[in-house]
């Protein structure tokens, strides 16, 4: 009955490892994520519950960061107005609030998702489920917060320069784009942080200073013609600016928008190419990091 003696150890393994195409990887990811949607719901619920358990402020937390961003933005605007650039009006506050919520969604999700794999080590090394579920549920929990903030804002928006027009239809498209961009970044960074623990510190620094490189507290136009087109290289910038133009300005995003600065210099604040550029980053980034994540997934338990 002895199949191999102690001395006669098997010496050579058959070497080949399998290679899969990116397309079949994507199919697998979608199938797995769909099959484990209930788990994703449960983990999202867990993250939300924990956030609000033993917390005095309750849902006030969801509004806390966006309100801070709006206040910070107001200070910047007042300073700029004092220096003779722009005015502080209701539209400015409306735009600030929209961009503030989006930014806090992005920052909150990425910050939370980056550590989502490492903070669930016991799950990753002990129980199988598609690991995508972890960063995705971090995104879900943050999306819940941002939705509350968004609902609160939608009550206030009519008083903050909301313009009902066809341009408003761009809002859902842009929200999907920011969702895709955030999901891609979350997948990539959570995976990277699992292998290299310093990623989370780098991300923290980037998120802290990112607000200076993203037109959240200010509008792109205040940077002048060159500055505006430079800041638009940030993939988030066109999405945030686009939302402002569509919701507050009620403008179509298929034509360039030109604004005059106070010195009378025309600045191209919007161009349809910007939309394409952000879409490229959002979708390309999502697909690329999903495939990367999926391929690395099987090494997680070993390297964590």
């Amino acid at each position, binding site marked *: *009955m*002895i*199949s*191999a*003696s*102690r001395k006669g*150890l*098997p010496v*050579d*393994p*058959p*070497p*080949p*490892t399998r290679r899969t195409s990116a397309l079949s990887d994507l199919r697998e990811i979608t199938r797995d994520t769909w099959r*484990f949607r*209930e*788990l994703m*719901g*449960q*983990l999202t619920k*867990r993250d939300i*519950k*924990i956030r609000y*358990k*033993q917390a005095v402020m309750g849902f006030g937390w969801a509004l806390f960061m966006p309100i801070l961003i709006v206040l910070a933005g107001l200070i910047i605007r007042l300073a700029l107005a004092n220096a003779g650039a722009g005015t502080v009006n209701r539209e400015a506050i409306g735009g600030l609030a929209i961009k503030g919520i989006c930014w806090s969604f992005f920052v909150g999700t990425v910050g939370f998702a980056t550590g989502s794999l490492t903070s669930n080590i*016991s*799950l990753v*090394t*002990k*129980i*199988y*489920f598609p690991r995508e579920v972890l960063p995705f549920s971090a995104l879900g929990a943050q999306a819940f917060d941002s939705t509350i903030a968004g609902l609160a804002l939608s009550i206030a928006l009519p008083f903050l320069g909301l313009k009902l027009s066809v341009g408003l239809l761009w809002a859902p498209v842009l929200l999907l784009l920011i969702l895709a961009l955030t999901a891609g970044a979350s997948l990539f960074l959570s995976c990277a942080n699992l*292998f*290299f*623990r*310093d*990623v989370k510190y780098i991300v923290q620094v980037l998120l802290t200073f990112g607000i200076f490189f993203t037109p959240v507290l200010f509008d792109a136009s205040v940077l002048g013609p060159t500055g505006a087109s430079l800041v638009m290289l940030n993939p988030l910038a066109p999405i945030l600016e686009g939302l402002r133009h569509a919701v507050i300005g009620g403008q179509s995003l298929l034509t360039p928008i030109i604004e005059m600065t106070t010195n009378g210099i025309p600045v191209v604040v919007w161009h349809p190419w910007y939309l394409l550029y952000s879409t490229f980053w959002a979708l390309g980034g999502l697909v690329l990091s999903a495939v990367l994540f999926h391929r690395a997934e*099987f*090494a997680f*338990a*070993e*390297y964590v």
Partner: protein
Amino acid sequence: MPCYSIGPSLRSLNTCDVAMTSSYIRFGNVWKRFRRGEIHDSLRDLVPAVSRQLLGRVRNGSAAALQPNEFWAVRDVSFEVEPGKALGIIGGNGAGKSTILKILTRILRPTAGTAEIRGRAGALIEVSAGFHQDLTGRENVFLQGSIMGMPMALIREKFDEIVEFSGIAEFLDTPVKRYSSGMQARLGFSIAAHLDPDVLIIDEVLSVGDFRFQDRAFGRIRELVSRGLPVVIVSHQLDRIASLCNEAIVLDRGVAVYRGDPADCIAWYLSGNRASSGDGKEEAAIQIHQLTTEGPAEVPSGADVGLTLIGTISSASAASEDVALRVRSATSGSVAFETTLARCGINLLSPGEFRVRVDLEMNLRPGVYTIEPNVINVMTHNDVGTGPLAYIQVASDPGFVGYSHLRPRMRLL
């Protein structure tokens, strides 16, 4: 070992029947390589590693050769488990048992070979790993259940059963951080035990909770096994393996060194342990060459068993040595009985060959027993030499309860 292949596909039957008849576990020539020591895990270490890889100094992941700091945790292990079969995997710490289970449950990917499970796998492994300390027991049932792959509808359906089984109903709305570790483990096991899987994988969960709960847990596992699912069990509780499994594998440093009937495997495993622990002893004056049993290999509890012990005495210093006969339960590894020749009135003094007739009354519970003849030092009582083993199987008797046969004699007064 014969390999069984799966019968014709039964897709036309309803899903439940398909699950019952065609679920299986297949493990084909699996190899798994691990690295010893630290793996670079900060970006500072990445740069040299990547540049080395780019310069071609490191073989890429698919090559077969081992690096100096690598080792095979699993080497060329194959098995196949069909419905109605329960496979036990035994071996010492670090033999590769848990690695095999992790490959089976898709946590790890094999370096080479294939691991395949058909049907929904239920893993009784780390049953409370998904608990969040701040959530209540009730919330954690849903969380842990869905982490283990239970659909919400199933959790809702089984919720009352789970709670009842765990026996902690009154603390259901208390955060689990206030539970004792035993209570957490009980709740975790109860969830896992209600997974309703097509394939069952069990790792060391048989020692959860107090002895009453252990009995209940064991009964539950027995019930799941008796449903005819394909089952793989890893445990150090050898008697549990013996009573649950109908086939077993002994692992040693990643290699399946022995496979067959669980009792044989356990005996082989225990005797293997003994052989390797007997190294480096000084030469004993008494050598044991043979220990043979007479009569049938399987006897009912309480029956007499005759053995013949043959050995030689090589020098006069034999006075300081004696032969001990140790009857060891192959299922639990514990010594059931031990005696020595001297205690039975035989003193080995004159050099030359000796033959001793031994009769034992096997008043023991059903199971496999090894009889180990050991040469011992009469002063220190340490083993100084070993001899070949004999096996005796006490026939299974469903009516037997306890661990020894007290030969009851009753009469009506």
